[in-house]
Protein backbone atom coordinates (compact mmCIF):
# COMPACT_ATOMS: atom_id res chain seq x y z
CA UNK A 1 0.00 0.00 0.00
CA UNK A 2 1.11 3.50 -0.63
CA UNK A 3 2.68 5.91 1.70
CA UNK A 4 4.60 8.96 0.74
CA UNK A 5 7.29 8.41 3.35
CA UNK A 6 8.10 5.11 1.74
CA UNK A 7 8.38 6.70 -1.68
CA UNK A 8 10.57 9.44 -0.31
CA UNK A 9 12.72 6.93 1.49
CA UNK A 10 13.13 4.94 -1.69
CA UNK A 11 14.50 7.91 -3.57
CA UNK A 12 16.87 8.66 -0.69
CA UNK A 13 17.95 5.07 -0.45
CA UNK A 14 18.47 4.70 -4.20
CA UNK A 15 21.84 6.44 -4.13
CA UNK A 16 23.13 4.12 -1.46
CA UNK A 17 21.71 0.86 -2.67
CA UNK A 18 23.56 -2.04 -4.20
CA UNK A 19 24.20 -1.51 -7.94
CA UNK A 20 22.78 -4.98 -8.56
CA UNK A 21 19.28 -3.68 -7.82
CA UNK A 22 18.87 -2.62 -11.48
CA UNK A 23 19.74 -6.15 -12.56
CA UNK A 24 17.15 -7.45 -10.15
CA UNK A 25 14.53 -5.10 -11.54
CA UNK A 26 15.20 -6.38 -15.04
CA UNK A 27 15.14 -9.96 -13.89
CA UNK A 28 11.79 -9.36 -12.20
CA UNK A 29 10.50 -7.73 -15.35
CA UNK A 30 11.59 -10.38 -17.80
CA UNK A 31 9.49 -13.23 -16.46
CA UNK A 32 6.11 -11.85 -17.48
CA UNK A 33 6.98 -10.75 -20.95
CA UNK A 34 6.16 -12.62 -24.12
CA UNK A 35 6.70 -11.89 -27.82
CA UNK A 36 3.86 -10.38 -29.82
CA UNK A 37 2.08 -13.14 -31.74
CA UNK A 38 2.64 -13.08 -35.51
CA UNK A 39 -0.92 -12.01 -36.26
CA UNK A 40 -0.68 -9.09 -33.86
CA UNK A 41 2.56 -7.95 -35.47
CA UNK A 42 1.08 -8.07 -38.95
CA UNK A 43 -1.86 -5.98 -37.80
CA UNK A 44 0.57 -3.33 -36.64
CA UNK A 45 2.05 -2.40 -40.02
CA UNK A 46 0.58 1.03 -39.47
CA UNK A 47 3.29 3.07 -37.79
CA UNK A 48 2.56 3.84 -34.14
CA UNK A 49 4.49 4.82 -31.06
CA UNK A 50 3.78 1.41 -29.56
CA UNK A 51 4.93 -0.63 -32.60
CA UNK A 52 7.96 1.60 -32.98
CA UNK A 53 9.05 1.09 -29.37
CA UNK A 54 8.25 -2.63 -29.47
CA UNK A 55 10.39 -3.00 -32.61
CA UNK A 56 13.30 -1.22 -31.02
CA UNK A 57 13.02 -3.41 -27.97
CA UNK A 58 13.14 -6.55 -30.10
CA UNK A 59 16.27 -5.55 -31.92
CA UNK A 60 17.99 -4.53 -28.73
CA UNK A 61 18.84 -1.00 -29.85
CA UNK A 62 17.69 0.27 -26.48
CA UNK A 63 19.77 -2.23 -24.54
CA UNK A 64 21.99 0.52 -23.18
CA UNK A 65 19.13 2.87 -22.28
CA UNK A 66 18.23 1.57 -18.86
CA UNK A 67 15.04 3.53 -18.09
CA UNK A 68 13.39 2.75 -21.42
CA UNK A 69 14.63 -0.82 -21.52
CA UNK A 70 13.14 -1.44 -18.09
CA UNK A 71 9.81 0.04 -19.11
CA UNK A 72 9.50 -1.53 -22.56
CA UNK A 73 8.77 -5.24 -23.00
CA UNK A 74 11.83 -7.43 -23.18
CA UNK A 75 11.32 -10.22 -25.66
CA UNK A 76 12.04 -13.85 -24.99
CA UNK A 77 12.32 -16.53 -27.68
CA UNK A 78 9.04 -18.19 -28.61
CA UNK A 79 8.32 -21.24 -26.51
CA UNK A 80 8.53 -24.47 -28.52
CA UNK A 81 6.77 -26.58 -25.94
CA UNK A 82 3.10 -26.20 -25.08
CA UNK A 83 3.58 -27.49 -21.55
CA UNK A 84 6.15 -25.49 -19.63
CA UNK A 85 6.96 -26.51 -16.09
CA UNK A 86 5.03 -24.45 -13.55
CA UNK A 87 2.91 -22.82 -16.23
CA UNK A 88 -0.72 -23.53 -16.91
CA UNK A 89 -3.44 -22.71 -19.41
CA UNK A 90 -6.34 -20.75 -18.03
CA UNK A 91 -9.37 -18.88 -19.29
CA UNK A 92 -10.21 -15.37 -18.17
CA UNK A 93 -13.39 -13.45 -18.90
CA UNK A 94 -12.24 -10.02 -20.01
CA UNK A 95 -14.62 -7.36 -21.29
CA UNK A 96 -17.26 -10.04 -21.86
CA UNK A 97 -15.01 -12.36 -23.88
CA UNK A 98 -13.44 -15.63 -22.82
CA UNK A 99 -9.69 -15.36 -23.35
CA UNK A 100 -7.60 -18.51 -23.34
CA UNK A 101 -4.10 -17.93 -22.03
CA UNK A 102 -1.73 -20.77 -22.81
CA UNK A 103 1.26 -21.55 -20.58
CA UNK A 104 0.72 -18.64 -18.24
CA UNK A 105 3.41 -18.23 -15.62
CA UNK A 106 1.96 -18.23 -12.07
CA UNK A 107 3.98 -15.07 -11.41
CA UNK A 108 2.13 -13.12 -14.11
CA UNK A 109 0.15 -10.32 -12.52
CA UNK A 110 -3.25 -9.51 -13.94
CA UNK A 111 -1.76 -6.23 -15.17
CA UNK A 112 1.08 -7.86 -17.10
CA UNK A 113 -1.28 -10.48 -18.49
CA UNK A 114 -3.61 -7.79 -19.83
CA UNK A 115 -0.82 -5.75 -21.34
CA UNK A 116 1.76 -8.26 -22.49
CA UNK A 117 -0.34 -11.29 -23.38
CA UNK A 118 -3.63 -9.75 -24.49
CA UNK A 119 -2.20 -6.40 -25.66
CA UNK A 120 -4.93 -4.53 -23.80
CA UNK A 121 -2.51 -1.68 -23.19
CA UNK A 122 -5.12 0.83 -22.06
CA UNK A 123 -4.44 -0.36 -18.52
CA UNK A 124 -1.18 1.30 -17.47
CA UNK A 125 1.75 0.22 -15.35
CA UNK A 126 2.80 3.05 -13.07
CA UNK A 127 4.43 2.09 -9.80
CA UNK A 128 3.66 -1.67 -10.03
CA UNK A 129 3.20 -1.66 -6.21
CA UNK A 130 -0.39 -0.56 -5.62
CA UNK A 131 0.56 3.02 -4.88
CA UNK A 132 -0.52 4.96 -7.98
CA UNK A 133 -3.77 3.47 -9.33
CA UNK A 134 -2.77 3.58 -13.03
CA UNK A 135 -3.52 -0.16 -13.29
CA UNK A 136 -7.07 0.05 -11.89
CA UNK A 137 -9.52 -2.44 -13.45
CA UNK A 138 -12.86 -3.86 -12.34
CA UNK A 139 -13.26 -7.43 -11.13
CA UNK A 140 -16.91 -8.42 -10.75
CA UNK A 141 -17.75 -4.72 -10.89
CA UNK A 142 -15.34 -3.66 -8.12
CA UNK A 143 -12.19 -1.68 -8.69
CA UNK A 144 -8.83 -3.22 -7.79
CA UNK A 145 -5.14 -2.66 -8.51
CA UNK A 146 -4.32 -5.21 -11.22
CA UNK A 147 -0.59 -4.99 -10.40
CA UNK A 148 -1.04 -6.61 -6.97
CA UNK A 149 -2.89 -9.73 -8.01
CA UNK A 150 -1.95 -12.80 -10.01
CA UNK A 151 -3.94 -13.65 -13.15
CA UNK A 152 -4.32 -17.22 -11.89
CA UNK A 153 -6.55 -15.92 -9.09
CA UNK A 154 -9.25 -14.61 -11.43
CA UNK A 155 -10.67 -17.54 -13.36
CA UNK A 156 -14.45 -17.38 -13.44
CA UNK A 157 -14.57 -13.67 -12.61
CA UNK A 158 -15.69 -10.78 -14.80
CA UNK A 159 -12.75 -8.49 -15.58
CA UNK A 160 -13.41 -5.10 -17.15
CA UNK A 161 -10.68 -2.84 -18.50
CA UNK A 162 -10.89 0.63 -20.02
CA UNK A 163 -11.27 -1.07 -23.43
CA UNK A 164 -14.49 -2.67 -22.19
CA UNK A 165 -16.00 0.54 -20.90
CA UNK A 166 -16.62 2.40 -24.13
CA UNK A 167 -15.11 3.04 -27.53
CA UNK A 168 -14.59 5.98 -29.85
CA UNK A 169 -18.03 7.19 -30.93
CA UNK A 170 -19.68 5.40 -28.03
CA UNK A 171 -17.92 6.66 -24.92
CA UNK A 172 -18.97 5.79 -21.40
CA UNK A 173 -20.47 8.94 -19.81
CA UNK A 174 -17.42 9.16 -17.52
CA UNK A 175 -15.05 9.02 -20.49
CA UNK A 176 -17.06 11.76 -22.18
CA UNK A 177 -17.00 13.85 -19.00
CA UNK A 178 -13.21 13.54 -18.74
CA UNK A 179 -12.95 14.81 -22.33
CA UNK A 180 -15.41 17.62 -21.68
CA UNK A 181 -13.70 18.79 -18.49
CA UNK A 182 -10.13 18.18 -19.68
CA UNK A 183 -9.52 15.74 -16.82
CA UNK A 184 -5.93 14.94 -17.84
CA UNK A 185 -2.74 16.37 -19.18
CA UNK A 186 -0.31 13.64 -20.22
CA UNK A 187 -3.04 10.98 -20.03
CA UNK A 188 -0.99 8.22 -18.46
CA UNK A 189 -3.12 7.95 -15.30
CA UNK A 190 -6.40 8.58 -17.14
CA UNK A 191 -7.61 5.04 -17.75
CA UNK A 192 -7.06 4.23 -14.07
CA UNK A 193 -8.78 7.46 -13.04
CA UNK A 194 -11.79 6.65 -15.21
CA UNK A 195 -12.02 3.06 -13.96
CA UNK A 196 -11.99 4.37 -10.38
CA UNK A 197 -14.50 7.10 -11.16
CA UNK A 198 -16.93 4.64 -12.75
CA UNK A 199 -16.62 2.27 -9.78
CA UNK A 200 -17.29 4.95 -7.18
CA UNK A 201 -20.70 5.63 -8.76
CA UNK A 202 -21.86 2.38 -7.13
CA UNK A 203 -20.06 2.82 -3.79
CA UNK A 204 -21.79 4.14 -0.65
CA UNK A 205 -19.86 7.39 -0.44
CA UNK A 206 -21.20 10.81 0.49
CA UNK A 207 -22.38 13.48 -1.96
CA UNK A 208 -19.72 16.18 -1.48
CA UNK A 209 -16.58 17.03 -3.44
CA UNK A 210 -14.65 16.06 -0.32
CA UNK A 211 -16.17 12.59 -0.65
CA UNK A 212 -14.99 12.47 -4.28
CA UNK A 213 -11.48 13.48 -3.18
CA UNK A 214 -11.29 10.58 -0.72
CA UNK A 215 -12.88 8.12 -3.13
CA UNK A 216 -10.34 9.07 -5.82
CA UNK A 217 -7.35 9.09 -3.43
CA UNK A 218 -6.00 5.83 -4.84
CA UNK A 219 -5.32 7.39 -8.24
CA UNK A 220 -2.34 9.71 -8.46
CA UNK A 221 -2.10 12.31 -11.26
CA UNK A 222 1.38 13.80 -11.40
CA UNK A 223 0.25 16.43 -13.92
CA UNK A 224 -2.14 17.65 -11.24
CA UNK A 225 -5.39 17.56 -13.21
CA UNK A 226 -7.32 16.86 -10.02
CA UNK A 227 -9.66 19.86 -10.19
CA UNK A 228 -10.87 18.86 -13.65
CA UNK A 229 -11.09 15.19 -12.69
CA UNK A 230 -13.35 16.10 -9.76
CA UNK A 231 -15.46 18.25 -12.09
CA UNK A 232 -15.92 15.30 -14.45
CA UNK A 233 -16.86 12.92 -11.63
CA UNK A 234 -19.24 15.47 -10.09
CA UNK A 235 -21.04 15.92 -13.43
CA UNK A 236 -21.58 12.19 -13.98
CA UNK A 237 -22.72 11.70 -10.36
CA UNK A 238 -25.31 14.46 -10.81
CA UNK A 239 -26.61 12.78 -13.96
CA UNK A 240 -26.96 9.38 -12.31
Amino acid at each position, binding site marked *: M*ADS*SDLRSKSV*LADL*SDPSSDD*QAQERQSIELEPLPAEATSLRRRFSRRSFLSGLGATGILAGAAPLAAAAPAVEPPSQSSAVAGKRTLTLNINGKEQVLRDLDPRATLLDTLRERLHLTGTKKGCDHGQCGACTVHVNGRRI*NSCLTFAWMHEGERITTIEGLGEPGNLHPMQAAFVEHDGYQCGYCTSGQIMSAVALLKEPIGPSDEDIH*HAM*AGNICRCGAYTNIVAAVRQVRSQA
Partner: protein
Amino acid sequence: MQTFEFVHAETVEKAIATRPEARFIAGGTTLVDLMKLSVETPAALVNINALPLTKVEKLPDGGLRIGALVRNSDLAWHPEVQKSYAVLSQAILSGASPQLRNMATTGGNLLQRTRCAYFREPTAGTPGGYGCNKRTPGTGCAALDGLNRTHAVLGTSDHCIATHPSDMCVAMAALEAVIHVEGAKGKRTIAIAEFHKLPGSTPQIENALEPGELVTYVDLPKPIEGARSVYLKLRDRASYEFALASAAVVAKVEIGRIQSVRIALGGVGTKPWRSPEAEAVLTGKPANPENFRAAAETALANAHPRGENAFKVELAKRCLVRSLKLATA
Protein backbone atom coordinates in the same frame (compact mmCIF):
# COMPACT_ATOMS: atom_id res chain seq x y z
CA MET B 1 10.27 -12.72 -8.62
CA GLN B 2 11.20 -16.22 -7.50
CA THR B 3 8.82 -18.81 -8.89
CA PHE B 4 6.46 -20.78 -6.69
CA GLU B 5 3.99 -23.61 -6.72
CA PHE B 6 0.42 -22.30 -6.98
CA VAL B 7 -2.28 -24.31 -5.23
CA HIS B 8 -6.00 -23.56 -5.21
CA ALA B 9 -7.79 -24.61 -2.02
CA GLU B 10 -11.57 -25.05 -1.96
CA THR B 11 -11.77 -26.05 1.70
CA VAL B 12 -10.06 -24.98 4.92
CA GLU B 13 -8.92 -28.60 5.35
CA LYS B 14 -7.12 -28.59 2.00
CA ALA B 15 -5.63 -25.14 2.64
CA ILE B 16 -4.03 -26.10 5.95
CA ALA B 17 -2.92 -29.53 4.69
CA THR B 18 -1.00 -28.18 1.70
CA ARG B 19 2.51 -27.41 3.01
CA PRO B 20 3.34 -25.83 6.35
CA GLU B 21 5.83 -23.44 4.71
CA ALA B 22 3.35 -22.30 2.04
CA ARG B 23 1.92 -18.81 2.24
CA PHE B 24 -1.81 -18.24 1.98
CA ILE B 25 -2.85 -15.62 -0.55
CA ALA B 26 -6.17 -13.76 -0.38
CA GLY B 27 -6.11 -10.07 -1.37
CA GLY B 28 -2.39 -10.14 -2.05
CA THR B 29 -1.94 -6.44 -1.33
CA THR B 30 0.97 -7.00 1.05
CA LEU B 31 2.25 -10.35 -0.18
CA VAL B 32 2.49 -9.62 -3.94
CA ASP B 33 4.06 -6.25 -3.20
CA LEU B 34 6.71 -7.87 -1.01
CA MET B 35 7.30 -10.73 -3.47
CA LYS B 36 8.13 -8.14 -6.12
CA LEU B 37 10.67 -6.65 -3.71
CA SER B 38 12.18 -10.08 -2.94
CA VAL B 39 11.22 -9.57 0.71
CA GLU B 40 8.83 -12.53 0.53
CA THR B 41 10.04 -15.58 -1.41
CA PRO B 42 7.46 -18.30 -0.73
CA ALA B 43 8.04 -21.72 -2.31
CA ALA B 44 4.28 -22.21 -2.57
CA LEU B 45 1.17 -20.03 -2.54
CA VAL B 46 -2.22 -21.37 -1.50
CA ASN B 47 -5.05 -19.36 -3.03
CA ILE B 48 -7.71 -19.25 -0.30
CA ASN B 49 -10.19 -16.95 -2.05
CA ALA B 50 -12.66 -19.80 -2.64
CA LEU B 51 -12.92 -20.71 1.06
CA PRO B 52 -16.34 -20.14 2.69
CA LEU B 53 -15.06 -17.41 5.02
CA THR B 54 -16.77 -14.42 3.45
CA LYS B 55 -19.67 -13.70 5.82
CA VAL B 56 -20.32 -11.22 8.62
CA GLU B 57 -22.74 -12.80 11.10
CA LYS B 58 -24.33 -11.82 14.40
CA LEU B 59 -23.43 -14.23 17.21
CA PRO B 60 -26.06 -15.50 19.67
CA ASP B 61 -24.29 -13.63 22.51
CA GLY B 62 -24.67 -10.31 20.67
CA GLY B 63 -21.16 -10.26 19.21
CA LEU B 64 -20.15 -10.24 15.57
CA ARG B 65 -18.29 -12.94 13.62
CA ILE B 66 -16.23 -11.71 10.66
CA GLY B 67 -14.99 -14.23 8.09
CA ALA B 68 -11.26 -13.96 7.36
CA LEU B 69 -12.02 -13.30 3.68
CA VAL B 70 -14.41 -10.40 4.26
CA ARG B 71 -12.90 -7.54 2.25
CA ASN B 72 -11.95 -4.39 4.13
CA SER B 73 -14.42 -2.23 2.18
CA ASP B 74 -17.30 -4.65 2.84
CA LEU B 75 -16.48 -4.74 6.54
CA ALA B 76 -16.21 -0.97 6.84
CA TRP B 77 -19.55 -0.49 5.08
CA HIS B 78 -21.39 -3.30 6.84
CA PRO B 79 -24.46 -1.77 8.55
CA GLU B 80 -23.82 -3.60 11.83
CA VAL B 81 -20.20 -2.46 11.92
CA GLN B 82 -21.16 1.13 11.16
CA LYS B 83 -23.84 1.07 13.84
CA SER B 84 -22.22 -0.84 16.70
CA TYR B 85 -18.47 -0.77 15.98
CA ALA B 86 -17.98 2.68 14.43
CA VAL B 87 -14.32 2.77 15.45
CA LEU B 88 -13.63 -0.22 13.21
CA SER B 89 -15.43 1.26 10.20
CA GLN B 90 -13.60 4.57 10.64
CA ALA B 91 -10.22 2.87 11.06
CA ILE B 92 -10.57 0.77 7.92
CA LEU B 93 -11.81 3.68 5.80
CA SER B 94 -8.86 5.78 6.96
CA GLY B 95 -6.39 3.27 5.56
CA ALA B 96 -5.04 2.55 2.07
CA SER B 97 -7.11 3.37 -1.02
CA PRO B 98 -10.55 2.22 -2.21
CA GLN B 99 -8.95 -0.23 -4.66
CA LEU B 100 -6.76 -1.75 -1.95
CA ARG B 101 -9.65 -1.96 0.51
CA ASN B 102 -11.64 -3.85 -2.13
CA MET B 103 -8.82 -6.42 -2.28
CA ALA B 104 -7.48 -6.58 1.29
CA THR B 105 -9.14 -9.05 3.66
CA THR B 106 -9.76 -9.14 7.39
CA GLY B 107 -7.33 -12.02 7.90
CA GLY B 108 -4.69 -10.48 5.66
CA ASN B 109 -4.88 -7.12 7.39
CA LEU B 110 -4.06 -8.84 10.70
CA LEU B 111 -0.83 -10.03 9.03
CA GLN B 112 0.05 -6.75 7.29
CA ARG B 113 3.80 -6.18 7.41
CA THR B 114 5.72 -3.07 8.33
CA ARG B 115 6.43 -0.19 5.95
CA CYS B 116 9.98 0.26 7.34
CA ALA B 117 11.93 1.35 4.23
CA TYR B 118 14.93 -0.76 5.27
CA PHE B 119 12.79 -3.88 5.67
CA ARG B 120 11.32 -3.25 2.20
CA GLU B 121 14.70 -2.67 0.53
CA PRO B 122 15.32 -5.72 -1.73
CA THR B 123 18.87 -6.41 -0.48
CA ALA B 124 18.25 -5.73 3.24
CA GLY B 125 19.54 -8.50 5.47
CA THR B 126 21.89 -9.81 2.75
CA PRO B 127 25.67 -9.29 2.59
CA GLY B 128 26.29 -5.71 1.45
CA GLY B 129 22.69 -4.70 2.13
CA TYR B 130 21.18 -2.79 5.01
CA GLY B 131 20.96 -4.55 8.34
CA CYS B 132 17.47 -5.85 9.07
CA ASN B 133 16.92 -8.30 11.90
CA LYS B 134 13.36 -8.87 10.73
CA ARG B 135 14.61 -10.00 7.30
CA THR B 136 17.69 -11.86 8.53
CA PRO B 137 18.16 -12.17 12.29
CA GLY B 138 21.60 -11.03 13.42
CA THR B 139 22.22 -8.50 10.63
CA GLY B 140 21.37 -5.50 12.79
CA CYS B 141 18.82 -2.71 12.35
CA ALA B 142 19.67 0.14 10.00
CA ALA B 143 16.67 2.13 11.23
CA LEU B 144 18.01 2.54 14.79
CA ASP B 145 20.27 5.39 13.70
CA GLY B 146 18.95 5.84 10.18
CA LEU B 147 15.84 7.26 8.51
CA ASN B 148 13.41 6.61 11.35
CA ARG B 149 10.88 9.43 11.21
CA THR B 150 8.00 6.97 10.74
CA HIS B 151 9.27 4.36 13.18
CA ALA B 152 7.83 3.20 16.48
CA VAL B 153 8.40 4.72 19.91
CA LEU B 154 6.52 2.08 21.95
CA GLY B 155 7.39 -1.60 22.23
CA THR B 156 10.72 -1.17 20.49
CA SER B 157 13.94 -3.07 21.15
CA ASP B 158 17.58 -2.72 20.17
CA HIS B 159 16.83 -5.24 17.43
CA CYS B 160 13.87 -3.59 15.68
CA ILE B 161 11.83 -0.38 15.78
CA ALA B 162 9.50 -1.13 12.86
CA THR B 163 6.00 0.31 13.20
CA HIS B 164 2.96 -1.92 12.89
CA PRO B 165 1.12 -0.34 9.93
CA SER B 166 -2.49 -1.49 10.33
CA ASP B 167 -5.37 0.80 11.26
CA MET B 168 -7.89 -2.05 11.41
CA CYS B 169 -5.86 -3.85 14.08
CA VAL B 170 -5.76 -0.77 16.31
CA ALA B 171 -9.56 -0.59 16.31
CA MET B 172 -9.76 -4.33 16.91
CA ALA B 173 -7.39 -3.99 19.87
CA ALA B 174 -9.75 -1.44 21.44
CA LEU B 175 -12.70 -3.73 20.66
CA GLU B 176 -10.96 -6.77 22.23
CA ALA B 177 -11.31 -8.91 19.11
CA VAL B 178 -10.72 -12.65 19.31
CA ILE B 179 -8.98 -14.36 16.40
CA HIS B 180 -9.95 -17.88 15.35
CA VAL B 181 -7.26 -19.96 13.70
CA GLU B 182 -7.10 -23.47 12.33
CA GLY B 183 -4.07 -25.65 11.65
CA ALA B 184 -2.78 -29.20 11.59
CA LYS B 185 -3.24 -29.42 15.38
CA GLY B 186 -6.85 -28.23 15.24
CA LYS B 187 -8.71 -25.03 16.04
CA ARG B 188 -7.88 -22.43 18.68
CA THR B 189 -8.60 -18.80 19.51
CA ILE B 190 -6.14 -16.01 20.25
CA ALA B 191 -7.01 -12.69 21.92
CA ILE B 192 -5.83 -9.81 19.74
CA ALA B 193 -3.60 -8.57 22.58
CA GLU B 194 -1.70 -11.88 22.33
CA PHE B 195 -1.79 -12.15 18.54
CA HIS B 196 0.89 -9.63 17.59
CA LYS B 197 4.33 -10.08 19.14
CA LEU B 198 6.78 -7.47 20.39
CA PRO B 199 10.06 -7.57 18.45
CA GLY B 200 12.33 -8.22 21.46
CA SER B 201 15.33 -10.17 20.19
CA THR B 202 13.21 -12.04 17.60
CA PRO B 203 11.65 -9.39 15.33
CA GLN B 204 11.21 -11.99 12.58
CA ILE B 205 8.39 -13.50 14.68
CA GLU B 206 5.49 -11.11 14.22
CA ASN B 207 2.50 -13.05 15.45
CA ALA B 208 1.29 -16.09 17.38
CA LEU B 209 0.45 -18.21 14.33
CA GLU B 210 2.15 -21.59 14.04
CA PRO B 211 3.52 -22.55 10.61
CA GLY B 212 0.58 -23.56 8.40
CA GLU B 213 -2.10 -22.07 10.67
CA LEU B 214 -4.86 -20.14 8.92
CA VAL B 215 -6.92 -17.26 10.31
CA THR B 216 -10.55 -18.26 9.79
CA TYR B 217 -12.68 -15.72 11.70
CA VAL B 218 -12.43 -12.66 13.90
CA ASP B 219 -15.04 -12.31 16.63
CA LEU B 220 -15.96 -8.96 18.13
CA PRO B 221 -17.51 -9.07 21.60
CA LYS B 222 -20.98 -7.67 22.15
CA PRO B 223 -20.85 -3.86 21.93
CA ILE B 224 -20.85 -2.00 25.25
CA GLU B 225 -24.27 -0.48 25.64
CA GLY B 226 -24.18 3.30 25.66
CA ALA B 227 -20.50 3.49 24.67
CA ARG B 228 -19.20 5.69 21.86
CA SER B 229 -16.17 4.98 19.76
CA VAL B 230 -13.79 7.05 17.66
CA TYR B 231 -10.76 6.44 15.45
CA LEU B 232 -8.55 9.47 14.91
CA LYS B 233 -5.62 9.22 12.52
CA LEU B 234 -2.90 11.84 12.08
CA ARG B 235 -0.68 11.61 9.00
CA ASP B 236 1.33 13.58 6.47
CA ARG B 237 -1.67 14.06 4.16
CA ALA B 238 -5.41 13.69 4.49
CA SER B 239 -5.82 10.37 2.69
CA TYR B 240 -3.97 7.32 1.36
CA GLU B 241 -1.24 7.51 3.97
CA PHE B 242 -0.06 5.55 6.98
CA ALA B 243 -0.52 6.96 10.47
CA LEU B 244 2.16 8.97 12.21
CA ALA B 245 -0.08 8.55 15.25
CA SER B 246 -3.61 7.27 15.66
CA ALA B 247 -5.94 6.44 18.50
CA ALA B 248 -8.93 4.14 18.85
CA VAL B 249 -11.15 4.93 21.82
CA VAL B 250 -14.26 3.14 23.07
CA ALA B 251 -15.70 5.07 26.01
CA LYS B 252 -18.84 5.07 28.10
CA VAL B 253 -19.62 8.21 30.08
CA GLU B 254 -22.39 8.58 32.66
CA ILE B 255 -23.16 11.88 34.34
CA GLY B 256 -19.80 13.30 33.33
CA ARG B 257 -17.76 10.35 34.62
CA ILE B 258 -16.00 7.73 32.55
CA GLN B 259 -17.58 4.37 33.39
CA SER B 260 -15.37 2.39 31.06
CA VAL B 261 -12.80 3.16 28.42
CA ARG B 262 -10.61 1.19 26.06
CA ILE B 263 -7.67 2.82 24.36
CA ALA B 264 -5.37 1.62 21.60
CA LEU B 265 -2.74 3.59 19.71
CA GLY B 266 -1.49 3.14 16.14
CA GLY B 267 1.46 4.47 14.16
CA VAL B 268 3.65 4.60 17.26
CA GLY B 269 3.93 0.97 18.34
CA THR B 270 5.69 -2.14 17.10
CA LYS B 271 2.27 -3.76 17.51
CA PRO B 272 -1.28 -2.38 17.82
CA TRP B 273 -0.79 -0.63 21.16
CA ARG B 274 -3.47 -1.18 23.79
CA SER B 275 -2.86 0.96 26.86
CA PRO B 276 -4.44 -0.50 30.00
CA GLU B 277 -2.37 2.01 32.03
CA ALA B 278 -4.06 4.98 30.36
CA GLU B 279 -7.45 3.29 30.76
CA ALA B 280 -6.82 2.90 34.52
CA VAL B 281 -6.03 6.60 34.82
CA LEU B 282 -9.43 7.49 33.35
CA THR B 283 -11.79 4.89 34.73
CA GLY B 284 -14.22 6.42 37.24
CA LYS B 285 -12.82 9.93 36.66
CA PRO B 286 -14.52 13.00 35.23
CA ALA B 287 -14.24 13.31 31.45
CA ASN B 288 -12.18 16.52 31.31
CA PRO B 289 -9.06 17.78 29.50
CA GLU B 290 -6.81 17.41 32.58
CA ASN B 291 -7.64 13.74 32.96
CA PHE B 292 -7.30 13.17 29.21
CA ARG B 293 -3.82 14.70 29.29
CA ALA B 294 -2.87 12.62 32.33
CA ALA B 295 -3.97 9.49 30.48
CA ALA B 296 -1.94 10.51 27.44
CA GLU B 297 1.17 11.13 29.58
CA THR B 298 0.74 7.67 31.06
CA ALA B 299 0.22 6.01 27.68
CA LEU B 300 3.49 7.43 26.35
CA ALA B 301 5.46 7.23 29.62
CA ASN B 302 7.67 4.42 28.31
CA ALA B 303 8.19 5.88 24.84
CA HIS B 304 11.69 5.50 23.39
CA PRO B 305 12.12 7.86 20.45
CA ARG B 306 15.26 7.56 18.32
CA GLY B 307 16.14 10.78 16.55
CA GLU B 308 13.77 11.66 13.72
CA ASN B 309 10.68 10.16 15.37
CA ALA B 310 10.91 12.17 18.62
CA PHE B 311 7.97 14.33 17.50
CA LYS B 312 5.70 11.29 17.61
CA VAL B 313 5.65 11.23 21.41
CA GLU B 314 3.87 14.58 21.72
CA LEU B 315 1.84 13.94 18.56
CA ALA B 316 0.49 10.67 19.97
CA LYS B 317 -0.41 12.36 23.26
CA ARG B 318 -2.37 15.09 21.50
CA CYS B 319 -3.98 12.51 19.23
CA LEU B 320 -5.22 10.58 22.24
CA VAL B 321 -6.45 13.71 24.07
CA ARG B 322 -8.38 14.80 20.98
CA SER B 323 -9.92 11.39 20.39
CA LEU B 324 -10.96 11.14 24.06
CA LYS B 325 -12.67 14.52 23.69
CA LEU B 326 -14.50 13.32 20.58
CA ALA B 327 -15.55 10.03 22.16
CA THR B 328 -16.87 11.62 25.35
CA ALA B 329 -18.36 14.81 23.91
